[in-house]
């Protein structure tokens, strides 16, 4: 079968053809970009944080009426209170291990600083060569097991290396553990273990004693999400946070028991709101809620769009079939088989859809470019567009099948009847 009769027939229905082609083009443009957005968000959500997330939860609490951590005595008192809490939590039956920490991956509150391979001049510097932004985690020696971090080289902290000082104090630690991403960025061609780094523009060096596989920063730390610095210290302030690993399957029971245990140690504290004892699962869900929401929204829009376009094709092709009953009858009477009629409408749709897809590719790339310029989206990779084109062509074929089959069932006798 040649295209010639199809093109000749289409010329008679210019406006209908243009409308279908336009609809296919717009659908392709929007669905391509929507699916790309979905793909990116799902990719974000599925990134591992570096933690073993099951059975992990975070306790954040605040003491009331304490002297504050600005004096040395105050800091000592707060550290003693923190140690009491840790001991109480560690002795709970459903708890496997506990570590004090200032933050966890994807948590909203996080401390960020700059790290460099050369001595600093007292100012933060994350733009020069050999420097980087990083999320800081202040933890003790039990953090490795509690968080389920994977050590890839060197060693983790020993108990006697863990210091404690006021959270408001700037102190340069003697040693740190860093993440692999950070190590590869700052020491591209040597082992980071044993090297020195300079934190927050300090002139005094800090030695790297170990490297962990990964530890993600706060959800807003987009450009430096994988740069992490673990400092062996309990920070003392009027609030404290404890990462708790429950025994397998006992997370909810452990979470439920935490408030009464901590109130038992000291009732003068804030621990009542639902943010105080929070499973990592919820921290993760909260962090990615807007990504998830966007993916769902784009998915819903894409489904509606595809549905509308498919029904549009069905509707208009049905109309054409009805209009051409007589011509179809003539063709059948002249010897065309049912399958020829079927193929005719399928090929017709393919022709229109191809035309629409060509415009659609341009629109898709244009929309993507516009989103890149205005909203900092990434460039859509070519395979996505190709998949999109294939999808709308298939969609067209799928939608045209029912009316085309009805056309193929038009009996030859229709040629002899008027309308």
């Amino acid at each position, binding site marked *: 079968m040649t295209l010639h009769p199809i093109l000749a027939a289409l010329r008679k229905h210019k*406006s209908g053809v243009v409308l279908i082609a336009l609809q296919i083009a*717009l659908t392709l443009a929007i669905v391509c970009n929507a699916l790309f957005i979905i793909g990116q968000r799902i990719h974000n959500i599925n990134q591992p944080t570096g933690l073993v997330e099951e059975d992990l939860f975070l306790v954040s609490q605040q003491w009331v009426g304490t002297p504050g951590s600005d004096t040395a005595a105050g800091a000592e008192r707060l550290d003693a209170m923190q140690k009491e809490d840790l001991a109480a939590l560690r002795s709970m039956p459903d708890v496997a291990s506990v570590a004090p920490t200032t933050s966890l991956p994807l948590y909203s509150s996080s401390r960020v600083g700059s790290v460099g391979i050369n001595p600093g001049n007292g*100012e933060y510097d994350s733009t020069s060569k050999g420097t980087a932004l990083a999320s800081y985690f202040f933890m003790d020696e039990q953090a490795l097991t509690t968080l389920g971090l994977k050590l890839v080289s060197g060693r983790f902290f020993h108990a006697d290396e863990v210091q404690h000082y006021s959270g408001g104090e700037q102190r340069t630690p003697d040693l740190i553990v860093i993440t692999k991403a950070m190590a590869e960025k700052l020491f591209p061609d040597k082992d980071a273990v044993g090297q020195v780094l300079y934190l927050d523009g300090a002139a005094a060096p800090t030695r790297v004693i170990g490297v962990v596989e990964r530890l993600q920063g706060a959800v807003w730390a987009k450009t430096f999400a994988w740069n992490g610095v673990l400092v062996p210290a309990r920070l003392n302030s009027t609030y404290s946070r404890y990462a708790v690993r429950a025994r397998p399957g006992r997370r909810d029971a452990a979470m439920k028991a935490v408030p009464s245990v901590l109130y038992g140690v000291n009732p003068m504290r804030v621990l009542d709101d639902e943010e105080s004892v929070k499973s990592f699962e919820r921290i993760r869900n909260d962090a990615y809620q807007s990504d998830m929401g*966007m993916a769902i*929204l784009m998915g819903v829009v894409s489904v509606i769009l595809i549905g*509308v376009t498919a029904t*549009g094709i069905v*509707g208009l092709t049905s*109309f054409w079939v009805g209009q051409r009953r007589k011509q179809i009858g003539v063709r059948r009477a002249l010897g065309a088989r049912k399958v020829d009629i079927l193929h005719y409408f399928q090929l017709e749709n393919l022709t229109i859809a191809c035309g629409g897809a060509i415009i659609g590719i341009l629109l898709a790339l244009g929309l993507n470019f516009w989103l890149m310029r205005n909203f900092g989206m990434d460039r859509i990779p070519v395979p996505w567009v190709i998949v999109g084109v294939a999808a709308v062509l298939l969609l067209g074929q799928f939608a045209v099948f029912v009316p085309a089959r009805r056309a193929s069932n038009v009996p030859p006798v229709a040629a002899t009847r008027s309308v």
Partner: protein
Amino acid sequence: MLRYYLELAVRSLKRSPGLTALMVLAIGFGVAASMTTYSVFRAVSGDPIPWKSSRLFVPQIDAWGPSAHRDGSIEPVDALSYTDAMALMRDHRAKLQSPIYIISSSVVPTRPGEHPFNVSGHVVYGEFFPMVEAPFRYGSGWSADDDRQRSAVAVISSKLNRKLFGGENSIGKSVNVEGRNYRVVGVLDEWNPQPRFYDIQNTGGFSTASDDLFLPFERAIEWGIPNDGNTGCVKPPEESGFVGLQRSSCVWLGYLAQLDNAKAVSAYRDYLESYARDQQHSGRFTWAPNIRLHDLPAWLVSEQVVPSDTKISLLVALGLLVVCLVNTSGLLLAKFLRRSGEIGVRRALGAGRLAIYAQFLTEAGMIGVAGGLLGIALTGVGILGVGVVLPKGTAALATLDMSLLLLTLAVAVFATLLAGLYPTFRAARVQPAWQLKSN
């Protein structure tokens, strides 16, 4: 005549229920998707204090200099250092003004046996309340004297008042914050402006956490109630603790000033400029003055309060609506042209082109109304769905009110009429003679 056209339209729509349903569904879904995303957009791009926003200003002073601008922009950072905020407050050049910082403090209930709990709040000067026109249920804000004498007074929200005092008039009672007593001088009415314009830096504009406690600035500073918000530094503070933060170049304070007319605005801008120049002369800044004075609407834009996700969603949904319209246009074209014979007869019997226009646009309008009604129902579903998928802070703001309802219907009808224009134009061009002959 309209009744006749309505009758014709109903008859025509009934004749092909499948096609009619397709069109109504397309319009309904298209409009609902647009309206759902629009309701979110409308919620986050609203003016929180429309009668006054053009008279509220946020001053910015570049406290870090050009070397801190990492990405090549020259915009000063969006918060003030303690030194600068206090200097602006001391000079007192605006009609009303206040530095602002966010706190998260423990409150100890008066009833024995209850555990302390956390409240979020802000530390401000007394001028803040008349400036933002915060509504009071009982009492009022504190006076300039209270600010000067560092009185231990507090303004609390009605929510905190319910929690602590059962909702009764609690003026004169004391509230225990961080172990110290403050006398309640005012209880706010329900007040939760969105976006929370006086603290965009820490809330991003939208927050489900209520703002329950307001304390006097100098009292809070002296008693060391720490900042619970973002702190930005180009270098670590040289001294430790909250006092070290106050003496550092770190920025952590918001600032709001009321300037009533253009003259006051330009005078304040000159003042900021001369303040920054004085800092340069005294050697504290080693760079030329770089100041900004945005009014509230411009400030909300520069802080990008409307999330780009919201804009993209609205855009994509509008694209969906366009596709639905193109789709409806195609289906209407098919439907109208199928009735060429009928049109031919009407034309031959004397109906003018205008009459054909009226007839077919009535039919399109009817589909629009049906699509709009479906759209309203689906928008309702959509807004419920938004509550599930979007962060609570913004989702809670998206509501289906009367104006959105009417807008949904209006958009549906207008869009369908638009889609019907071309098919109607084609229908009106049908040649009566040719149609009659071919029949």
